[in-house]
């Protein structure tokens, strides 16, 4: 068994681990973005291991393709999730930005 065979086996193992991990995350998180990101991370690791073998043009092309797909998906999810993001108010303070935040004083009977 040569070093190249070991690396190929390692690459396949990492792919299998990626499918397992993505499945586990999907079952628990119940959302799509994170499991896909996890799977792509593992596929990237597998691609890097394959790239360490004999860098054939096909391996190079597949590694480059994974990067492009990964970037497109990441960009797509970031674009979709960016819209509903809002400033979360700090409890005990009112105001939208840290600069104009002021302590929130509850209105009591005396002040009325």
């Amino acid at each position, binding site marked *: 068994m040569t070093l190249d065979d070991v690396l190929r086996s390692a690459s396949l193992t990492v792919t299998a681990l*990626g499918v397992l991990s993505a499945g*586990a995350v999907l079952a628990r998180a119940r959302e799509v973005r994170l499991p896909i*990101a996890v799977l792509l991370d593992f596929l*990237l690791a597998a691609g*890097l291991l394959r*790239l360490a073998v004999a860098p054939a043009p096909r391996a190079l092309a597949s*590694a480059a393709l994974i990067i492009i797909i990964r970037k497109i998906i990441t960009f797509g999810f970031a674009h979709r999730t960016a819209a509903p993001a809002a400033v979360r108010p700090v409890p005990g303070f009112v105001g939208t930005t840290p600069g104009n935040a002021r302590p929130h004083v509850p209105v009591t009977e005396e002040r009325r």
Partner: protein
Amino acid sequence: MTIFAVEGGFPASVLSESVLRDYVDLLVRLVEGAGAVVIFLGAALAAVGFVRAAFRRHSHEEFVRVRLSLGRYLTLGLEFQLASDVLSTAIAPTFAEIGKLAAIAAIRTLLNYFLAKEIERERAEVEGKQNVSAVDGTHV
């Protein structure tokens, strides 16, 4: 300087191009192997972390934390592989080898850059959520 003039003597045999090429090849394989070991180890540890977090019903941030550690391992492995690329240029390669090397080095450098940026962004996100939960007094 009679030592260097001796035919087949110590310096001539050690520093000949073919011997040097063998040494550098060995070093390249070793460094590349080290990078592969780091990547495989990171992937295995991350898989264990993901499955453990899923079974222990940890929060979303725990998954992100495991993902961050996987990203760090990948970055480290890539650094090793880039080091082996640099080592490969130590001996005069052919034009075809230079082209292949340039493509691999470009891919690895780009990957390293994007991974580092992604790790930075995810870390900032996790720290932001931790700060908010600390102010809220809630556990993330």
